[in-house]
């Protein structure tokens, strides 16, 4: 009596209320897809839209500052603009676009058919999209965020009734950051599990392409950094709405605690943003130099070192707060220290290009631009480890110049390099190289016109986050040049959008391996089939795809293997079986490959979260009910729905 067997499966025999979506093509399939490649495209398109929006905000800022006593924006509008520009570019451009590339290429580079949790992947996308729209909906419902992208307490934590910051701005900001944090944490967990569990046979960690490696490090940083900002946001929420005293100096609270919590998240966040760019150029430079990456393991380990050291430098954002000599010396030293692995990487990239058969494609130009601009940004960054200098530079345009050299010159150049490099693989058409060259040179010129003069105006004392300035400080001309530069960048981005449209209409059809690539994504058709790999590859070496195409003769010269040899070899290695055990499923041409089925539930769960966000903003408990209903319904239905429908095999 005490032991009997259960025969029914965990899943329900009938779907709860909703029939399982079947179609994997067409407009509506984008709402229910679990294909990592389609989700990546959604992430990418969303990030590009937010990039344009954040760019428009930047242009408004530059218009306001083009001359002294600007009148384009009021002080309050200016606050909103720089807050939304920063928030957008960090959380809605940088992170989602890196996740887009990671989503598309981590599975392809490690030889997997999808990520570990396809539905969680889709949930993460919806949360990021809804989180972004939620923050922007502040413009409609009583005030967009206006307390800076760092939202320093007690500025943001003072109750609204006190009227320090008008409107619901900080409420939208903090609830939005929590939403975006949930989204990025879920995708980070997904990436880590995918990389740990789903590598193709023979794909050891030290054979992984560097982009995948860097995304691996980034995912760990995200998993550990996001909960800290979430905690800080919850404290601000309670301070603001329930009169707790966390950051209320009058009640004994310590506003500095907020800065510690924020930058304990915020500095790893800097590396969350820059490491994907480093990963992309580490892919691009070897391909267009026809040389393996110089010092692969050093690049990987310096990436890991940056990941660790990134946790020990946060207080260099706070040198002006009076932390005391011991603390600032320690953080000054650690800030110098983190320049070492970063510098090592730069020499590795130069060593890769040195002596190579360099092809100056647009992608390569952006990668080289990355090295040059990022080095400049790194150099001005090291200056901040010199505490006395930093104290002088704090809150001036020098800092703005520094982090734009790192994040625009670094991250954005890296992402554009990735666009030109991977576009043919994703969409099956090449981006136009001629338009691309215009895109690159205008961006390089516009970028330096905009941000280089900021070093100078910063050093002579122009403060950040101040909506206007008087004439006669010697800032006028340089600011005008910066504004012109900003519009040159805008033109460059417009040209990129033109290139996208041109490519869709007339772009050359991309072969599967247009650049003579080195990693596995180039071994499959462009665009890849839904199942990615008809046969799971067996990896024999680092840069495996390259070694299947080329060998070396006795003199050490590259010799191309006879066409077809590589393919036969690959098939032979699959036929021998191997630990993946997938042989039984793998018929020819992908027939019989069992892929996860589309699902409505990620969308439903994610749709519940903004309700909770609005409930937190307006302190309206009624809004919790639809939110919790959607989340609960979606979560149960999700849990009871099998990841792949048994009868849905292709």
């Amino acid at each position: 009596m005490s032991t009997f067997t259960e025969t029914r499966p965990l899943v329900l025999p009938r779907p709860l209320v909703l029939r399982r979506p079947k179609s994997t093509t067409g407009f509506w399939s984008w709402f229910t897809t679990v294909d990592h490649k389609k989700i990546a495209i959604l992430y990418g398109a969303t990030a590009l839209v937010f990039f344009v929006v954040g760019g428009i905000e930047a242009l408004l800022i530059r218009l306001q500052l083009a001359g002294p006593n600007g009148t384009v924006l009021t002080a309050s509008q200016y606050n909103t603009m720089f807050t939304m520009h920063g928030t957008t570019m960090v959380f809605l451009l940088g992170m989602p676009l890196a996740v887009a590339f990671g989503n598309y290429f981590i599975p392809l580079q490690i030889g997997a058919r999808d990520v570990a949790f396809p539905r969680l992947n889709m949930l993460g996308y919806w949360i990021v999209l809804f989180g972004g729209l939620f923050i922007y909906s502040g413009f409609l419902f009583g005030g967009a965020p206006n307390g800076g992208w760092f939202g320093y307490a007690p500025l943001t934590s003072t109750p609204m009734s006190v009227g320090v910051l008008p409107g619901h701005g900080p409420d939208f900001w903090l609830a939005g950051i929590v939403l975006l944090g949930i989204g990025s944490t879920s995708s980070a967990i997904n990436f880590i599990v995918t990389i740990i569990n789903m590598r193709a046979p023979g794909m050891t960690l030290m054979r992984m392409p560097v982009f995948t490696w860097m995304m691996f490090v980034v995912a760990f940083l995200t998993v550990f950094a996001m909960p800290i900002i979430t905690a800080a946001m919850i404290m601000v929420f309670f301070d603001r709405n329930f009169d707790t005293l966390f950051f209320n100096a009058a009640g004994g609270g310590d506003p500095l605690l907020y800065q510690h919590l924020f930058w304990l998240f915020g500095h790893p966040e800097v590396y969350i943003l820059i490491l994907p760019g480093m990963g992309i150029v580490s892919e691009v430079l070897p391909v267009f130099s026809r040389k393996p990456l110089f010092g692969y393991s050093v690049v990987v380990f310096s990436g890991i070192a940056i990941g660790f050291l990134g946790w020990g430098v946060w207080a260099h954002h706070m040198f002006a707060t009076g932390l005391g000599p011991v603390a600032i010396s320690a953080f000054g030293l650690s800030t110098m220290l983190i320049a070492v692995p970063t510098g090592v990487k730069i020499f590795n990239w130069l060593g890769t290009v040195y002596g190579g058969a360099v092809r100056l494609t647009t992608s390569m130009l952006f990668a080289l631009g990355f090295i040059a601009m990022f080095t400049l940004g790194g150099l001005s960054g090291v200056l901040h480890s010199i505490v006395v200098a930093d104290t002088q530079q704090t809150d001036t345009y020098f800092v703005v110049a520094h982090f734009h050299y790192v994040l625009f010159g670094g991250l954005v150049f890296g992402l554009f390099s990735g666009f030109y490099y991977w576009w043919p693989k994703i969409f099956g058409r090449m981006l136009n190289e001629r338009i691309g060259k215009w895109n690159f040179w205008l961006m390089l010129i516009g970028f330096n016109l905009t941000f280089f003069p900021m070093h100078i105006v910063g050093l002579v004392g122009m403060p950040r986050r101040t909506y206007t300035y008087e004439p006669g400080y010697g800032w006028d001309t340089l600011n005008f040049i910066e504004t012109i530069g900003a519009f040159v960048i805008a033109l460059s981005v417009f040209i990129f959008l033109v290139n996208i449209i041109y490519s869709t209409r007339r772009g050359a059809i991309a072969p599967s391996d247009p650049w003579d690539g080195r990693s596995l994504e180039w071994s499959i058709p462009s665009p890849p089939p839904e199942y990615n790999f008809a046969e799971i590859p067996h990896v024999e070496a680092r840069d495996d795809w390259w070694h299947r195409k080329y060998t070396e003769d006795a003199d050490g010269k590259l010799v191309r293997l006879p066409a077809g040899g590589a393919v036969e070899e690959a098939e032979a290695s699959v036929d021998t079986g191997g630990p993946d055990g997938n042989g039984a499923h793998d018929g020819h041409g992908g027939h019989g490959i069992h892929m996860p089925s589309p699902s409505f539930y990620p969308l439903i769960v994610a749709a519940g979260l903004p309700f909770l966000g609005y409930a937190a903003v307006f302190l309206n408990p009624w809004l919790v009910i639809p939110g919790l209903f959607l989340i609960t319904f979606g979560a149960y239905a999700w849990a009871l729905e099998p990841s792949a429908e048994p009868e849905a095999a292709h």
Partner: protein
Amino acid sequence: MAAVEQVEQGAPPAVPTEPAHTDAQATHSGVISPKLGMWLFLSSDCLFFGAFIATFLLYRDRPGQKGPTPADVFDIPFTSVTSFILLMSSLTMVLALAAIQRGDHRRFRTWIMATALFGATFIGGQIFEFTQFTREGLNLDTNLFGSSFFVLTGLHGAHVTVGIIWLLSLWGLSMQGRIGQHQSEAIEIAGLYWHFVDVVWIVIFTVIYLIPK
């Protein structure tokens, strides 16, 4: 729909809980992906609680605070009892997992319900404690101790509540006969969460209640 019909006829389950492609790759770490994902989530949650515990420690000894102090309001014997009950719920969780792994569904249901009830008792104790403290004049806005204590322990209570709902859901599914012996991993993952919530409470109880000022 073939599998569904089989189920209705009481035939052996034909529905895989994981798509073939994840099964196939499980060799790399030897840990199934959902469990690894749960470990990562819990490691993330560690820093979440870490931030609040650090905040509490920072603020505990601030001078010049008005209102009740920890020594004024804490009822250590009472909280020890509820803490002990929460600790015991980890034991029953282990017994539940062992039962499902043996295929002993009856005991599984008993233990999983016991775990949920122990958790609910703890939450009841917390509600009583909160009410008591409020009556003694400690609120969110009274002093730093009130702010950091209520938010930290309240968020822990929210975690326990989510765990209870999860356990009751598993119990309900098992009553419908939908949790087979081969699905013990699903119980193990719920167990990971439950033990984590428990361990966090051990830290909170030690750091906040037991280590004297």
